[in-house]
């Protein structure tokens, strides 16, 4: 029979009560001398040890925390193999610190990643807020006389432009007793696909509250885009005319 004392790892021969019958040189060096294997097992690993280190489990491999001479908590993989006579060979392999180290670095990396992720999310939100603010500034309402107001539009004609401003604009219009609101296009560059439709529904809402919308300052390309949607315009004033002309026109003949 082979000699357990020369085993290259901490190894034990135990009986079915886990009493130590014999052990390897390395087992003597690594663990305090004890008559029971269970004594070497950390308190919070003992239930696990008792459950799996029995002849009922003929061959097992389990992780256990053991008290070594150098450390009160050391993680080991413990292999046990039982013979028919109710005697087991137990071999303990110390779990490399490398796993712990690796896990540590993964943890650090993950922390950094999640921080940057969250930072990016943060920046995105900030940008969105800034964008909304810009949009809000892009269609202010200017009361010119007690009956005429102007909405100069800036930037791109698109749905959001109306979405973010609609409520406030309608509110000012409703509470002011205006007859006409002149929507000035001279600050508009591009027309997005969503723009004309949104403009039309805005104009409809303006009409519903009893104010007549008037368009001015359209460039030929704008007009073309709006025509596509067969936008109905009930105005005598030329949509290509300037804001100044439009104001003058409606101040002189307010009933048009």
């Amino acid at each position, binding site marked *: 029979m082979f000699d357990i004392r020369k085993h290259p790892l901490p190894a034990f021969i135990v009986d079915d009560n886990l009493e130590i019958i014999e052990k390897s040189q390395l087992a003597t060096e690594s663990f305090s001398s004890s008559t029971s294997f269970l004594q070497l097992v950390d308190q919070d690993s003992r239930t696990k040890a008792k459950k799996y280190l029995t002849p009922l489990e003929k061959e097992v491999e389990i992780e256990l925390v053991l008290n070594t001479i150098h450390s009160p908590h050391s993680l080991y993989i413990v292999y046990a193999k039982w013979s028919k006579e109710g005697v087991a060979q137990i071999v303990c392999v110390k779990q490399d610190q490398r796993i712990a180290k690796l896990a540590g670095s993964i943890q650090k990396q993950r922390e950094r990643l*999640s921080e940057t992720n969250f930072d990016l999310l943060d920046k995105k939100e900030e940008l969105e807020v800034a964008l909304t603010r810009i949009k809000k500034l892009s269609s202010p309402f200017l009361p010119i006389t007690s009956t005429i107001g102007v909405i100069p539009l800036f930037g791109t004609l698109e749905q959001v432009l109306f979405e973010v401003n609609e409520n406030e604009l309608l509110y000012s219009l409703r509470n002011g007793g205006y007859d006409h609101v002149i929507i000035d296009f001279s600050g508009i560059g591009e027309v997005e696909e969503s723009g004309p439709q949104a403009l039309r529904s805005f104009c409809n809402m303006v009409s519903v509250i009893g104010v007549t919308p008037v368009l001015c300052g359209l460039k030929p390309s704008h007009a073309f885009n709006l025509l596509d949607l067969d936008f109905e315009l009930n105005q005598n004033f030329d949509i290509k005319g300037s804001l100044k002309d439009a104001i003058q026109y409606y101040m002189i003949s307010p009933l048009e």
Partner: protein
Amino acid sequence: MTIDIKQLTDDFLEGDQDRAWERIEELKSLMENSHLTYEVLTKAMQRVGKLWEENEISVADEHLATTTCDYVLSRYAYSKKISSTTTDGPRAVFLCIEQEQHYLGLKMISLLFQEYGWQTKLFGANLPLEHVIDTVEKWNASVVGISVSIMSHVERLNHYVTELEGLEKTPEVLVGGRLAAQYDLSKYCSKHTLLVPDLEQIRLWLEDRKGGEHNHV
């Protein structure tokens, strides 16, 4: 609707950050009550421990579960905008006892304090006591929270408590963590030390302080 701890544990063990996060995010009660969320995360991590005892998983799996849980915790704090940005709240320092790597619980407690308007500093494992004392003094912390999970570390607790409670401007020392929940640690503490067995106790303490402060102002 309630959360399935078993499924959450599985997500942790699979490292599925997104699924784990979704499970929390979709429950209004959890999004509104951080202490409930921390309890859920605690239960899931304890279940991880149980699976290890049943030989279903290894410590390597526990590492993955830990980082996943940690991610969910950070994301939760982020989405609820919990942070230590106030400049006028009372100050608390949180630390693990030297060599102690079980920091998840401490992180939760620190977040909870932040939510109650405290300024906090959270120190992880392996911080020498001298450094802690230095910070407590310079920063003028009125509370120091210590976490202990591992039995052999508890021997050092007494030294921590004595040193901290001996400072000129004595901070209040709170002791929590797995061991405080399972054992009576009073022999390692003084009669001024507050032993906190669980999250609910510290929440009540915070509620109490909140009320108290209002009365004084």
